[in-house]
């Protein structure tokens, strides 16, 4: 099986064998070896489908449940639509293009300053740092590369209180933070710090008065995330920054879901520390950064000790390929900001309208203070996991990827005051730069059909349709 690169080349190849073919970007591509590396699961899917349709059990049961999980043998592909942009985003081809040269020739250690191999990678690293800093209007020296937002959050949540532990013993955060912030804060409790977890209202927003009241003279750090990863709610970062500055408390924001997606200016918003993740902005996985303010200076104890790279805050050799990819991704989110946000806004409105037109559905979190690319919808009387099972052709999640393995309902929706049933039946939709209108329309149609199908199976739904208030029922045996 030989698949050539372009049609024109195939033609040429037929008539002019054994010649050097000029291909893209003056590259010469060898045609005598198989170039394509298919990652094909289609055959497996087909076999499964065949087995199912042949299986006597399936025929005997007469169930159509499985038919509802796929669109099978319909002349279309089998790979699911990716709609989980809060978990991670596809790597932009332009990012990959910047990264490749670091695996083919630019392999120098960016910290080697005795030879040109080190200088050339160091130049690229500093260039990337400049792009990353400019998205949030920071200085290049204020960006510290880490392995990702989880490391950044841990570094801040543990590093700042440890540095100021002699005088300050109190940390403030919220209940809807990402697991890594909550767990890091909990770990600090064991070191003798007090942690206040602020409640949020049913919109998912922090009450500024609560926050101000919670600040004590020995508070050293306030950590509030900019955009929530499960419900997409934007916190009033600027107002929180002003309060923290007034009380001379360091303000950290976890901007993994916000960086490059909503306007952030660290100076205008008085942000002292900010966590960034590369793979949420179409960059490579395995790299992130933390912004640490220099004036007024924020000091923190490093978690990783070593050769003193990155201002001594995060030792260890940088991965120039990842850093450069991250830098290119940052440059692109800044350059494409308007077109991206306009595209995402348009698709988001379309999807929200389509999903909320199904009866007994509700949008979780504030509808005004939100990042449009994250939509969390509850489908009442449908169990979320079974809906996800029925949606094998769409890659979705019921919440954060970290907790999707366990069946416990989302703690974020709990914090919003949603009951277990509603928290169980909610699904998060993530829209990004590469999502198309066609995909959104497919998703709306698929969800409509399958929610209807699952509700038809549910005895509860029958009762609801008969007008029985489920809360009024006295279930026997309890």
């Amino acid at each position: 099986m030989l698949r050539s690169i372009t049609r024109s080349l195939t033609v040429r190849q037929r008539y002019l064998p054994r010649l050097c073919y000029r291909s893209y970007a003056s590259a010469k591509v060898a045609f005598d070896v198989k170039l394509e590396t298919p990652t094909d699961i289609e055959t497996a899917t087909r076999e499964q489908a065949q087995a199912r349709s042949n299986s006597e059990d399936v025929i005997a049961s007469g169930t159509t449940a499985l038919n509802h999980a796929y669109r099978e043998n319909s002349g279309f592909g089998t790979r699911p639509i990716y709609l989980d942009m809060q978990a991670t985003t596809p790597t932009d081809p332009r990012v990959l293009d910047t990264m490749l040269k670091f695996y083919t020739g630019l392999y120098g250690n960016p910290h080697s300053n005795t030879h040109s191999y080190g200088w050339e990678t160091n130049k690229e690293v500093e260039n990337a740092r400049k792009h990353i800093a400019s998205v949030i209007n920071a200085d290049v020296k204020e960006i510290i590369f880490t392995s990702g937002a989880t490391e950044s959050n841990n570094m801040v949540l543990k590093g700042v209180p440890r540095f100021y532990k002699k005088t300050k013993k109190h940390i403030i955060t919220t209940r809807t933070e990402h697991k890594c912030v909550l767990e890091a804060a909990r770990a600090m409790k064991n070191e003798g710090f007090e942690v206040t977890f602020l409640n949020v209202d049913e919109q998912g927003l922090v009450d500024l008065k609560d926050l101000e009241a919670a600040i004590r003279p020995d508070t050293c750090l306030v950590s509030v995330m900019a955009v929530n990863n499960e419900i997409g709610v934007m916190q009033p970062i600027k107002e929180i920054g002003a309060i923290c500055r007034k009380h001379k408390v360091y303000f950290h924001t976890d901007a993994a879901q916000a960086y490059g997606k909503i306007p952030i200016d660290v100076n205008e918003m008085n942000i002292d520390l900010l966590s960034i993740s590369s793979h949420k902005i179409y960059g490579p996985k395995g790299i992130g950064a933390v912004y640490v303010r220099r004036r007024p200076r924020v000091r923190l104890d490093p978690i990783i000790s070593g050769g003193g790279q990155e201002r001594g805050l995060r030792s260890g050799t940088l991965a120039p390929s990842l850093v450069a990819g991250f830098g290119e991704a940052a440059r692109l989110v800044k350059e494409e900001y308007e077109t991206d946000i306009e595209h995402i806004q348009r698709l988001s409105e379309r999807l929200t309208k389509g999903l909320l037109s199904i009866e007994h559905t509700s949008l979780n979190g504030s509808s005004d203070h939100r990042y449009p690319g994250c939509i969390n919808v509850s489908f009442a009387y449908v169990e979320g996991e079974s809906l996800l099972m029925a949606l094998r052709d769409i890659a979705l999640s019921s919440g954060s990827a970290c907790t999707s393995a366990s069946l416990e309902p989302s703690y974020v929706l709990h914090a919003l005051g949603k009951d277990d049933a509603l928290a169980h039946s909610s699904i998060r939709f993530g829209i990004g730069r590469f999502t198309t209108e066609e995909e959104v329309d497919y998703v709306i149609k698929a969800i409509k059909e399958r929610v209807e199908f699952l509700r038809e199976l549910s005895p509860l739904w029958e009762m609801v349709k008969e007008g029985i208030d489920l809360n009024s029922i006295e279930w026997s045996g309890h």
Partner: protein
Amino acid sequence: MPALPSRSQVLSLYRQFIRNANNFSNYNYRNYFLRKAKTSFRQNKTLEDVTELNEAWNKAQRELGVLKRQSVISQMYTFDKLVVEPLQSSHDKRRH
């Protein structure tokens, strides 16, 4: 400094963008770069300033290089088609 690109040069560049974007085997990337080519050429249609024009021209040349390389890579590592993609598409008869 090269002379300003002529109308036919710009059109030819635009056609090259479209052709190369169409060569992506990944559905999402293909559609994104087609959309981007259309919007960015439309945006730059009204450019008058000589330095701005030259800048846009050079940038487009660089981006075309990226598109050419990346569409080849996209064809080297292929995946199944998405559920919204017809298996036999009109512009993709090379597939079987």
